[in-house]
């Protein structure tokens, strides 16, 4: 996995936008969630991630990554999110990232959270269609099973079945995580 990232980063440095897009989609959720954990502001989190990627592209030749692109990106997001909080919530991006040891535990926790949440998101997106629909209605719109059953024209038992199935799949995915 890390080798794929390094390969993709080398392609990005030679101007390959498609490789850059792959990296974007791969890291987006984790970076957004991490930034949000720090800033507690979803608009700021989104903007920090966007600006980071733009800066990454514009300075790609100056970023020499030989070990882990993942680590670099996570540190960069943390660094810029904390700066956002400290600089009176103004968004400016810096790429020369130096990890600070007193934040290690907190940082580690945030990453774990982000990875977990991302796993849940990915699982939900990969559910079979009806199952996904039911699950989203129950989770996002907080609808009772009876209401969902009525909306979709199925029995309450079927709704329960879908929820159970979704949780089983989630369990399998997290177990292998």
């Amino acid at each position, binding site marked *: 996995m890390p080798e794929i990232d390094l390969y993709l980063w080398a392609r990005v440095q030679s*101007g390959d936008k498609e490789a850059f897009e792959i990296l974007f*989609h791969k890291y987006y959720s984790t970076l957004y969630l991490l930034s949000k954990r720090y800033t507690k502001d979803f608009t700021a989190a989104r903007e920090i991630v966007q600006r980071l990627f733009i800066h990454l*592209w514009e300075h790609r*030749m100056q970023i*020499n990554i030989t070990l882990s692109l993942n680590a670099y990106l996570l540190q960069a997001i943390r660094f810029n999110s904390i700066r956002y909080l400290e600089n009176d919530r103004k968004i400016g991006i810096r790429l020369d990232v130096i990890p600070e040891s007193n934040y290690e535990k907190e940082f580690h*926790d945030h990453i774990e959270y982000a990875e977990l*949440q991302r796993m849940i998101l990915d699982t*939900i997106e990969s559910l079979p269609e009806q199952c996904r629909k039911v699950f989203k209605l129950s989770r*996002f719109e907080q609808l009772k099973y009876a209401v969902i059953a009525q909306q979709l024209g199925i029995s309450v038992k079927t709704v329960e079945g879908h929820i159970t199935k979704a949780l089983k799949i989630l369990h399998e995915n997290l177990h292998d995580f």
Partner: protein
Amino acid sequence: MNMFLSGNITIELLVGYIEGSLNDPHRDEVHHWLETDPANWEFFNRFKEAWSNPQELIELSKENQEKDWSFISMTLHESDKVKSGRNSKRLFSRWWIRVAAVFVMFLSITGGYYLGRNTNRPLSLTGGGYHEIVVPAGEKSKLILSDGTKVWINAGSTLRLPNQFNYISRDIWLDGEAYFEVTHDKVRPFLVHTSDLDIRALGTKFNVKAYSDEDVIEATLIEGLISLETWNIFNNRVDEVFVQPNHKAIFVKKKNPVISDEIIREIDEPLRPKRITISKPIQVEQTISWREGKLVFIDETFENIASKLERRFGVSILIENEQIKKVRYTGVLKNISVEQALKAIQFTARFNYSIHDNTIIITDETTVDQK
């Protein structure tokens, strides 16, 4: 493997616990699990928090992600346009604007100084670990790298390399044409990165032609072994193609590319976009003749010849007569000025030319030159 979800503890159980819908025996089971290991407790808290934030699922919807990507993509386009300043019209490639645009890019990225524009001395970017060597149209350059590898760089090319090769590989980035004689290094492959593919070499002699304003990338092997690696988006993996000596690999960047006659003669199968095609065995001397300052044309149209002359001499050539563009010429031009080149071609083709500064206008012989 998630160590926390052991035994009977399932996500379904944890969700039930969080939502308060479990019966007593099941609740006890969860309590027991939580008490067994503080790591379980930590995992539970994390999961509980994730489960309590379903709106994050909405925030991270595919839609939003696509929207954010579109915004970024557009911004990248804008910043790249400013940087390259390259025009798609080949006959009007004003090299001095291209070169000026390159320096605008240096200043905006580094916000700092650059050393004088001398093709024998690499330009240094502050704050990075890289050299960037820009060879404008009309010039050539030769380097010896820190590992002993020799590189010849053709006109209108840019080469980027790190101050120091790292311990994994020797990487350079090329936009343009260069010929390499790579020193043997068992441990570190030599990688030439171009816009669409990478060329991997161990101890070899090869030529790479990868101008960003052209539709194909060519890699010709003289001696040794190289492979070309492209990222296959559909399979999400790297495709690797090996090239034998005296063969050329051709990668087509897009549908309906502009291809030179030279290439058409060298292949015996059709070219497909985003694919690498290997040529028939060829005379490699012709491919690398540019190093000796030779220009070789075999049955090439005047149009193609003009664009080679533009690159080689750093001029702009405007052909005003459509028929003249299609006239074919065969010959070798060596170490001469652009005017001598035009005069040589005039032996076989009929045209007039007039030179104003760095612009040459080609007209048919019946047109009277206007000053």
